């Protein structure tokens, strides 16, 4: 899959869900892309590099979200 196509797919899908959910597992993203994990990883890494996505970590688990979205992002700025 082309990177730009992948980016559009992810951004669109994640934006649609914004109201209910802002953090996603890697597997959720791979499913949106309909790609095997290794292929999806390359594309998603690039989205991280370009700051389309950002990581959220509890320490034990890592989730992904659109940069600057979600409760935590607001808290991060005011702190």
């Amino acid at each position: 899959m082309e990177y730009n196509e992948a980016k559009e797919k992810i951004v669109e899908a994640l934006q649609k869900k914004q109201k209910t959910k802002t953090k996603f597992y890697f597997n959720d993203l791979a499913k949106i892309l309909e790609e095997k994990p290794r292929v999806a990883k390359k594309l998603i890494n690039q989205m991280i590099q370009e700051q389309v996505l950002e990581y959220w970590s509890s320490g034990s688990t890592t989730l992904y979200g659109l940069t600057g979205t979600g409760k935590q992002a607001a808290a991060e700025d005011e702190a």
Partner: protein
Amino acid sequence: MAKHETPLLDQLESGPWPSFVSDLKQEAEKRAKNEKGVEFQIPEDVVEDLLGVLELSYKHGRTHWKHGGIVGVFGYGGGVIGRYCDQPEKFPGVAHFHTMRVNQPAGKFYKAEYLRELCDLWDFRGSGITNMHGSTGDIIFIGTTTPQLEEIFYEMTHNMNQDLGGSGSNLRTPSDCIGQARCEYACYDTQAICHTFTNEYQDELHRPAFPYKFKFKFDGCPNCCVASIARADMSFVGTWRDDIRIDQKAVKAYVGGELAPNAGAHAGRDWGSFDIQKEVVDLCPTECMRYEGDKLEINTKECTRCMHCINVMPRALRIGNDRGLSILVGAKAPILDGAQMGSLLVPFIKAEEPYDEIKEIIESIWDWWMEEGKNRERLGELLKRQGFQKLLEMTGLEPDPRMVQEPRSNPYIFWKEDEVEGGWERDIDEFRKHHQR
């Protein structure tokens, strides 16, 4: 005078054991005095506030830390764990209190000078509080603010040749026992393999794409000093295929009391004279030893390399010469689904550079787990859910009796239809001719 009263924490100092509370108070005092004139980049009284918020948690019986965060260094999905306090007005020093994991050197060898550099950096840009070492093996830096993260990372990677470790849904920092560097029991070079795989799997360490955490641990022998068998998704345990080397003269010296059993480790008390029958032969778990007429014999076929006899008489018994390692998979601590020990996947494999065969196994396991693993499912849980046989298929390994504890137990190996002559279909009329209803 302490900034916050901490009567509950003070109690923790009263027992016979060293207390982290005393350590924290000492660090708080050190920062307050600041004899070295450090230009602290985060609040000077961070440790005081840490004690304060902990006291409050004891009082309330609940935590005052929020869960997780976005913080990290650019491009890395692990190594930093965001922590924020939910009482920032009361304890401004710990409003941000992020953890950083520093990838420990293989075998945890360092020079004092290197430790000093690390500590100076952490006094300057963090709380000064460390944990040597976290359970994954990392050097843990406890408590700093968001703006310090990139600064610390830059300093470590550019001037100290030091990387961050793993956290989150990543490969965690591989860890190993001290191995051949100091230990005569080591069956392979744990430092070499740990270091090689840390470099080889940088992408897995820093860019999280696994369903959950994944741990490698390397033990040089079945004594398992890093407890790989109990806590690594993949444990690599040194072993050998040939006979334990026996020095009969030294055996006699143990029996005669000239050599102290367990290298004198239990000499603090008089246990009476050494009884080889009672203390070694009778304790062999597979009953494969015999001591008769001043001669010790071991039936190698039955020996499971439990290390007991070697640990008791290290001068007389030595690991074999045909060495390698066993790979076990699926161990984990009880977070979601109960604790689990590793299951034997590869009974013996040579551990020689460039470790291509071992890498193939690792990567085939990852492919399986990344595709089939549910969110937050450890390898051991997937193994239980889909069966050991599935793992064998995915890794291309042949089933082996050593993977089974005993006949008819470990019922995760099943026949498939195409492996059985005639398949599952039976002619019922033919069957009824010989068997009544």
